[in-house]
């Protein structure tokens, strides 16, 4: 794994993940920009994503659904706020109903991605995720689907405990 640091700031409802990859900035950007590449990493292994709409322009929409082990589908959307290829992407990420329409009562978050070229040709990635309100965080925790995803990724918990203790 290429994560260099994870910082969680509960008072500001923000998490910052810093990662480094031995790949050019164009290749890293392609993983966001190409919908076929995006769907290979956006969903957890047990909830693979299918991207149905992909418009990475300001005001544009990305629509996707994730398919669970029971064939259950969970729809989500991005609303693009800023793009500066291949350096920056800022978008709102939220949940959608069965028809793919954004759910007003479901939590959203803002994701700000910054890519920069390292001297050795690799790429430095900073991903900042912010919840707009404490309510959004409560909603996320209350969601059954989220619990299911967490259970599917239960093996990660030990790793997380160690990391949280170190921070």
């Amino acid at each position, binding site marked *: *794994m*290429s*994560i260099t*640091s*994870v*910082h*969680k*700031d*509960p*008072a*500001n*409802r*923000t*998490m*910052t*993940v*810093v*990662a480094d*990859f*031995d*790949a*050019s900035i*164009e*290749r*890293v950007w392609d*993983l966001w920009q190409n919908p076929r*590449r995006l769907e*290979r*990493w*956006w969903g*957890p*292994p047990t909830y693979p994503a299918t991207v149905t709409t992909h418009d990475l322009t300001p005001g544009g929409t990305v629509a996707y659904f994730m398919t669970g082990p029971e064939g259950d589908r969970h729809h989500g959307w991005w609303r693009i706020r800023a793009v500066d290829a291949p350096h920056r992407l800022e978008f709102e990420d939220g949940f959608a109903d069965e028809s793919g329409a954004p759910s007003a009562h479901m939590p959203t*978050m803002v994701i700000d991605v910054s890519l920069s070229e390292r001297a050795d040709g690799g790429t430095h990635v*900073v*991903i*900042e*995720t912010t*919840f707009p309100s*404490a309510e959004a*965080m*409560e909603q*996320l*925790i209350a969601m059954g689907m*989220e619990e299911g*995803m*967490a259970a599917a*990724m239960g093996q*990660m*918990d030990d*790793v*997380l405990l160690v*990391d*949280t203790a170190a921070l």
Partner: protein
Amino acid sequence: MVVDKNPQKEDRVFHALADPTRRDILARALHREHSVSALARCYPMSFAAVQKHVAVLERAGLVTKRRRGREQLVHSNIETIRIARRALDRLETLWRTRLEQFGELLAEDDQGETP
């Protein structure tokens, strides 16, 4: 720079908790809301001094203030922070999984076609 502001935030929490009066204010605010003037009566110091202590706790994100008429009510944010911590833990799990797959995809490219 995003990463740099975070240690400062933690410093603020430690600084806020380093003072016995502020720890006492926080402990009182955990149970129920208190007005700044009610808190000021609990300590042998001026209203302004207590107000300053409350401001330090507020900057550290440990309490919030709300206005009721002419009063300023102080209450603890600890529950909010606890919920926030859980939500961020979930988010961390999700992003670790995502970036692991992200890295695997980039590594796959290296073995196959050139970039």
